[in-house]
């Protein structure tokens, strides 16, 4: 990518697990992955950031609750508010909610088990920084794997999310965890910050994923960066 565009940071917290997978996905999409370390208050001039999946700080206390206070989150919150694209996947989504960058919270799956399965999703918004390469209404299949993926918020917040079109993904073919209104992913008002429970970075190669449907997240943001 020219002009330094396409540098996508991937934060590693202690206990992050899918950080290298997120980096691989960025690379496969044609971007330049940049490793970011939780202890450093430095985003190394990246153009966008992925908060990856995993069990940051063991997911003790609540998922994402301890990671949210990491030094790296300071510049990240600031930049995100200023419009930098940020994607939170699974644990990353939990961190974004704990940081109040996204509303609501993620709670224990209603069936109380960790669940790992290939999950169908309906794309509800194809104009966020991370979903430009999808079509509205399109169905994609990517892995889902978590123990605390139930999206909850109070009715007023849920109504507002719907009214403002901030639900980006909904579960299709069965709700896997009791998420309110089948919500799998949401965005902030500006559409630059997206969080979702399923794992697009695990659906970028036919060999290792159920599909390559997840690649679109990363190509979307790279395109956005070029045209921005």
């Amino acid at each position, binding site marked *: 990518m020219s002009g330094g565009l396409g540098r996508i940071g991937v934060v590693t917290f*202690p*206990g992050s*697990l*899918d950080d*290298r*997978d997120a980096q*691989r996905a960025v690379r496969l999409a044609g971007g330049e992955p940049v490793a970011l370390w939780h202890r450093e208050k430095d985003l190394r001039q990246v153009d966008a950031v992925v908060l990856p*999946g*995993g*069990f940051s*700080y*063991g*997911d*003790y206390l609540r998922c994402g609750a301890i990671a949210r206070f990491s030094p790296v989150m300071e510049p990240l919150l600031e930049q995100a508010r200023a419009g930098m694209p940020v994607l939170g996947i699974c644990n990353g989504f939990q961190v974004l909610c704990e940081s109040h960058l996204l509303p609501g919270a993620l709670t224990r799956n209603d069936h109380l*088990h*960790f*669940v*790992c*399965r290939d999950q169908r999703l309906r794309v509800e918004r194809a104009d966020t920084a991370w979903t430009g390469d999808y079509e509205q209404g399109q169905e994609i299949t990517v*892995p889902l*794997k978590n*123990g605390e993926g139930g999206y909850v918020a109070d009715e007023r917040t849920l109504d507002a999310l719907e009214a403002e079109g901030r639900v980006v993904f909904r579960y299709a073919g069965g709700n896997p965890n009791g998420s309110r209104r089948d919500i799998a992913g949401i965005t902030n008002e500006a559409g630059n910050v997206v969080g979702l429970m399923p*794992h697009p*970075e*695990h659906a970028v*190669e036919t*060999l*290792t*994923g159920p599909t390559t449907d997840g690649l679109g997240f990363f190509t979307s943001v790279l395109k956005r960066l070029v045209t921005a």
Partner: protein
Amino acid sequence: MTRTTPAQRPVLDTVEHASGTPGTDQPWAELGLKEDEYARIRDILGRRPTGAELAMYSVMWSEHCSYKSSKVHLKQFGEKAPESDALLVGIGENAGVVDIGQDYAVTFKVESHNHPSYVEPYQGAATGIGGIVRDILAMGARPVAVMDPLRFGAADHPDTRRVLPGVVSGIGGYGNCLGLPNIGGETVFDSCYQGNPLVNALCVGVMKHEDIHLAQASGTGNKVILYGARTGGDGIGGVSVLASETFDEEGPAKRPAVQVGDPFQEKLLIECTLEIFRERLVAGIQDLGGAGLSCATSELASAGSGGMRVELDTVPLRDSSLSPEEILMSESQERMCAVVEPDKVDRFLEICEKWDVIATVIGEVTEGDRLEIYWHGEQIVDVPPRTVAHEGPVYHRPYERPSWQDGLQADDPAALPRPANGDELRAAALALIASPNQAAKSWITDQYDRYVLGDTVLAQPEDGGMIRVDDETGLGVAVATDGNGRYAKLDPYAGAQLALAESYRNVAATGARPLAVTDCLNFGSPEDPAAMWQFAEACRGLADACLELGTPVTGGNVSLYNQTGDTAIHPTPVVGVLGVIDDVSRRTPIGFTDEGYLLYLLGETREELGGSAWSQVAHGHLGGLPPAVDLERERLLAEILVAASRDGMIDAAHDLSDGGLVQALAESCLKGGKGARVVVPDGLSPFVFLFSESQGRALVAVPRSEEVRFNDMCSARGMPAARIGVVDGEAVEVQGEFSIPLSELRAAHEATLPGLFG
């Protein structure tokens, strides 16, 4: 109430004190030592042992750590080891290391955590995963996958409802949090495991050749660093008899027999250790598992060239009331011990700090040949480390073929009533695939992350798990684990060979070339001559078969005393086979995905129903002889499967094992979402065709365009191959007998475990 005041507290049992008080009564029996063993310790030391020394010897000479009953039989794995240039590190280290080419090496090992998982299913299973992962890490490898061969009591027994969900969430809770994909395992139910569930755990690790690390302490002046979790009172129930001698009643709190795992701490330990390896900062390394520091220090010192001196009071504690004996014995999880050159210590500690891992220099390598341990400046241990770690007692336990063995083998399933027509066959098929052992295991495997690390090419439900090792070249490995306690009960020699044969076949079915073996030998009490005979026979069988198949045993684990009262579990040798595949994009899955592909059955089907799934499901019967072993045939079948995968001649393959053809057919159809039409070959009864468990067989799907080439290959190599049908439609149809729609098949196969466990 009389209480000892601190003033009355006995003096620290130092070496000097022990030398001066030869007549002191010591609780050797409570610590599980035999009288002659205690005498031998006195003999070795030339005095009575101190409390700390007694604690060390007793735990290191236990069955679990010293293999004293099994050693004489395990020897065969080395003696009969086949020539293999794939073996970089053989038996005896934490785990064997196998060369897979392109400068990569792989290490893998299976271990048991049976008893702890019965007492506390969640933590027992979780710490089982934690322990095996540290073993692999200690070899210098990055752990890349785990597997979990499990055995439980009857599926509908109330205690299974306690044990199974706990074990599964423990394995998932720990493995998922470590970020290791679970790529396979086994789930077997049999009332013989009631009260003695088997929780075995396997880990695979990958490294470059030059990264192999060994557990040894050499180089005088090198520092011994303990790093990871603080030491607490875990798993030292046994030595509290010592503690109670040295402390007043208010001293130590109750010592838990149960260990609690902290997978987050272990994840940090892994990343930290790998970074330390990358910078080449360690001269030797050892994980802390059973017997804790006693084991780590004595093994490191024993394997190295010098001695070792340890200042035990520098060990970071979670509980300040621990006695020195207890610190030596503690099995607190998530700890490692490294030997580091003095000028590398600072960098070592820096990396630990980066990962928030506590690290402490606790001692150093000395010139002599003694392991010396000090407590606040006083010497409490002074022993030759080899006598603790490697020269423990060896038993030649008596063994004898049990008197009931003949009767069991004579009870042939030929006498059992069989399904006589299409309707009965259909019902038998549905009952089989819905039975707990043959049913889908997704209720379990859906609780395991199989995607993390992004290199999982095959996971459950497949014949073997497959992991990509190198992104660029596609080099990969496949691993399968198998064991059939029913077969082994009927004939332990053959049973062990059949476990190997199945695992070997499973690996080959994925397209990988089988290279090496690990095993977990789960048996009853070695003090029972019948159980000991089963054990001896299984070892002999496995060693003979490994020699014949050219796959060396690289390491493993023995779990004895799996019995309640007089009743032992079925002898259960669990065998893991590791194979290599040059390009994972050539892998062969089990699912039938393309209509029109031709179904070939490789191998020969005979009437073999002893120990079969059908005899269990339909009649609750176990008797007769297990299927015949033909290792030459297994080897040929594997060659065919690997060649067919490499040359793109097959689209899917599924080995035949328990449940026979009907099981394989159902699984492949359900996985791929396509039906199949098959015809019973001339000369076979439909029942035998569908339910026999003859070995050396596989079901493959061949694209029409490849049929000639495939047939030519089979006939050129003398492999029986029969075209039995075609991938087609929405049902499994056995022509002239019955048809089962996929939806009905799926409902039967998938409803069982959720129905039992929620």
